[in-house]
């Protein structure tokens, strides 16, 4: 398997999103979301809150072992979660369960515990990081290579694959070439390779749009005049970018949460209005019509999208200097959310875009969520552009009972995959 990101740590507490997909192969969480967004048992077989949802008790699955052979204990789980929930709640362990106690209601606790960051990990006697997932780490060369081996004593049954070799830092083009040449069985697909992959009959697995591509104005460094930010938001031709540069992958969106997750994203306009944009720009002083637009230099697609945005902005009378230098005034960023829970996802996206924490979301009722999102987008401190899926291409040797091999959230389901031997 090959991937573009360079993962430097597998520790769940690092909360490094690029590692989340791999963490899902190595570690388990107490609960997990299914593709319908419902919580399913993980290391916890059941969970029960009290009436005011301040106290939650999770009963642990019996006979679960870590990769180093040690049994999963309530104390280990409590210790791992205490680090995650420090300052929010206390975690206590009993014989076969843990109790999480807070002084305020925490109705979204199970959803939070389904996040990759809530993976249960422990340190072995030799200091190596071990989990209870279907694969164990046999070799890890940070940012370059990861070797996984099947965990024979996995509580849900041994995976079909004996081992998984993961090459990191491979460009989308190289990954596609390696897939075509049979050097890789599973690769990530970028939109630019989507069409040739399809034309070649390559199997591709798409997740739901789980990545938000947006413009983020830096906190404290953003242009003070909101008319500039609004003009830029109105000048962007999302349709052209979606059709050409993204090869119709993902969806254009003017909201933070994708339509499939919130259900109300269509209420946020995302159409270009060049006339209005020009009017706003005309009201600006000439010196305020220029600013840099930074993009991730490792993201080739981001560069061309940023340049296209600069072209659109120029039509409105704005001058954007596209740069791959780390500038904070305006950035084109990708935010990958990992939760199927809208509240948790919105929090992830807001944090990723540098927006303030959403307030008064409450229990996640749609109208409250909508208001919170509307509030976040007021002033155009962030301009959502697209929701993009994660796409993988599988080689002809890859087999599984039920395709696709990834979850709706984009997590690889390698435990159910096998590879045919080369004849």
């Amino acid at each position, binding site marked *: 398997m090959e991937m573009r990101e360079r993962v430097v740590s597998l520790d769940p507490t690092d909360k490094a999103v690029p590692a989340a997909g791999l963490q899902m192969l190595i570690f388990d969480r107490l609960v997990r979301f299914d593709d319908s967004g419902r919580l399913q048992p993980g290391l916890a077989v059941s969970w029960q809150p009290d009436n005011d949802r301040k106290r939650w008790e999770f009963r642990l699955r019996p006979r679960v072992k870590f990769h180093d052979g040690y049994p999963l204990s309530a104390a280990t789980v409590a210790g791992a979660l205490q680090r995650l929930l420090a300052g929010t709640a206390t975690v206590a362990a009993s014989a076969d369960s843990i109790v999480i106690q807070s002084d305020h209601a925490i109705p979204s606790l199970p959803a939070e515990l389904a996040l990759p960051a809530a993976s249960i990990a422990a340190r072995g006697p030799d200091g190596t990081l071990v989990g209870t997932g279907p694969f164990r780490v046999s070799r890890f060369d940070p940012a370059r290579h990861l070797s996984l081996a099947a965990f024979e004593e996995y509580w849900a049954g041994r995976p079909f694959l004996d081992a998984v070799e993961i090459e990191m830092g491979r460009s989308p083009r190289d990954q596609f070439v390696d897939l075509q040449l049979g050097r890789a069985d599973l690769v990530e697909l970028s939109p630019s390779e989507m069409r040739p992959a399809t034309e070649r009959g390559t199997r591709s697995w798409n997740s739901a749009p789980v990545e938000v591509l947006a413009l983020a104005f830096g906190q404290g460094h953003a242009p003070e005049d909101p008319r500039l930010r609004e003009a830029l938001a109105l000048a962007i*031709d999302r349709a052209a970018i979606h059709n*050409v540069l993204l090869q119709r992958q993902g969806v254009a969106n003017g909201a933070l949460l994708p339509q499939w997750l919130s259900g109300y994203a269509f209420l946020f306009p995302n159409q270009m209005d060049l006339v209005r944009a020009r009017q706003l720009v005309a009201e600006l002083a000439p010196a305020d019509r220029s600013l840099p637009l930074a993009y991730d230099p490792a993201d080739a697609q981001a560069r061309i999208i940023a340049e296209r945005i600069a072209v659109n902005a120029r039509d409105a009378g704005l001058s954007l200097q596209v740069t791959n230098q780390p500038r904070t005034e305006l950035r084109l960023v990708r935010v990958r959310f990992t939760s199927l829970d809208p509240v948790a996802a919105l929090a992830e996206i807001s944090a990723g875009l540098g927006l303030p924490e959403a307030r008064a979301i409450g229990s996640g009722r749609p109208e409250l969520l909508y208001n919170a999102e509307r509030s976040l987008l007021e002033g155009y401190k962030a301009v959502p552009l697209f929701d993009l899926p994660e796409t993988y291409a599988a080689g002809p040797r890859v087999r599984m009972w039920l395709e696709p091999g990834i979850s709706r959230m984009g997590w690889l389901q390698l435990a159910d995959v096998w590879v045919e031997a080369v004849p």
Partner: protein
Amino acid sequence: MTFRTRLLGIIVLMVAATVALVSWIVAGTTRRAFERMDDARTAALVGQFRREFDSRRAEVVRRVDGIANAPSTLQIAIDAGGPNPDLSRYVDQAKPLADAQGLDFLELVGNDGAIISSAQWPARFGYKEDWILDPAADWRRDRAFLDNVQLPDGDALALVSVGVVEAADKKLYVVGGERVDQQFLASLVLPAGMRVVLHRETGAAPAPVDRTLGPIIDRVRRERREAVETVGESAAAETIHAIPLLGRQNNLLGVLLVASSRRELAELVQLIRTIGFVAGGTGILVALVLAWWATARVTRPVQRLAEGARDVAAGNWNASVEVPSGDEIGALARAFNQMTHQLIEQRDRLLQAERVAAWRELARRLAHELKNPLFPLQITVENMKRARERYPDEFEEVFQESTATLLTELSNLKQIIGRFSDFAKMPPPELEQVDVNEVAERAMSLYRAQLGTPDRAPIVPRLELTGSLPPVEADPEQLGRALGNLVLNAIDAMPNGGTLTIRTGRNSSGVRIEVSDTGEGLTKEECERLFTPYYTTKAHGTGLGLAIVQSVVSDHKGKIAVESEPGKGTTFRIDLTAIQP
């Protein structure tokens, strides 16, 4: 300034002027000839540059055609011509095509003028290039033209060609080009000594690449046609061919400045100038030496003549000039020598004549002086002889009277002879400090008694003496005697009475004594001969008085002059050197 120096200066000036004129003419002629050659060379260089530029145009056309004729491009045209074409798959197509053909710019433009793919600005897909749809567009006539290509960070001047790929009734336009900048120009094969500068019209304030090129750029801006000018000076000078770079709509996109260095010409002119200076300097130096020699040859006889003339003027009449040449100077020298010779002969003859005249005068005077006492002597002796014969008794008485008369007349003869003897035996003066005023007063008082004698008309004496005169070194006796002679002369000159004035005063070097009368005066001829010994205008004079005066004055290193006119009296003026304090 001497004649020789003047002559030398004139010759050197003439030589220098001649050398300068010749150098100027040679330098000017040579420069014009080389300028014509340089113009021809520059024209050839510009022509070579144009051919090179045209070959690059053809190369761009060839490359664009290469892309337009490629099967992959035809496939794009076919896809674009189909119903509901999805051209997004070709958004990245232009860059590899441009790279493969070595083009800086490439755009694939659809039938509607929308950019399908852009190599230089990939993000500009979908934007329209409306100019390409204009049926009367110039690009359809000119396969390669200049245009401003839009880039993310501005625009760039490019040599652009448009290729057309037709699929059914739809067209795909391949717009490719090569950037025209200094790098492009540097890649052209340029002859040595030539440089090419590109000035772009950016629409902003004109900023010529070189300040010296500003005027010619402005000229091309105004006239919209080629211009040729020479800018800079000396070795940095260049002949600039300014070629307007016109775009599709005949708009001025820039100015191409083809500069041909005039360094070689400037160095040649400088060399000619240096040679001119060296040759001129050498010529002037040689001319100086030759002129020195020539003027010496020419002026030496003249100098000798001048020296001879000065000697003659100084009284050396024996001076002669030796000039061996037979030219005019030699003839002049010979005439000079002949003239001095004749002068000497005339002087000798004059001296001889004067000597004879003087002797004759002396003889006449002596005869006259001696005849007066001799006549009574003869009468007395005849009386004595007659008395002895006729009156013997009275002879004794007559004898006594006659001998007394004889003695008297003999005494007169002796006196006459004594005066002549005195003049001959004038003693040298015994010099001492003398106050001329005292001498003048003494002379006047000595003869004052004679002025008022009743037997003659009265003469009024007058003394006009200047006080505080410096003393002179003189013999007071001889000086008084000289003044006395002048006073006597003045008395004799005024038989009808008048005024006798003795006047003293200062002159430039000492003191002056003047003795004036109001008598009848003298003629010019009389004045000239007045100091000649034994010359007198008086009936009973010896002619020695003024000769003695002149002798005394001369012995005192002084000068005597006379000023007189008939009827207005006579003034004698004696100038003596005063003793320096």
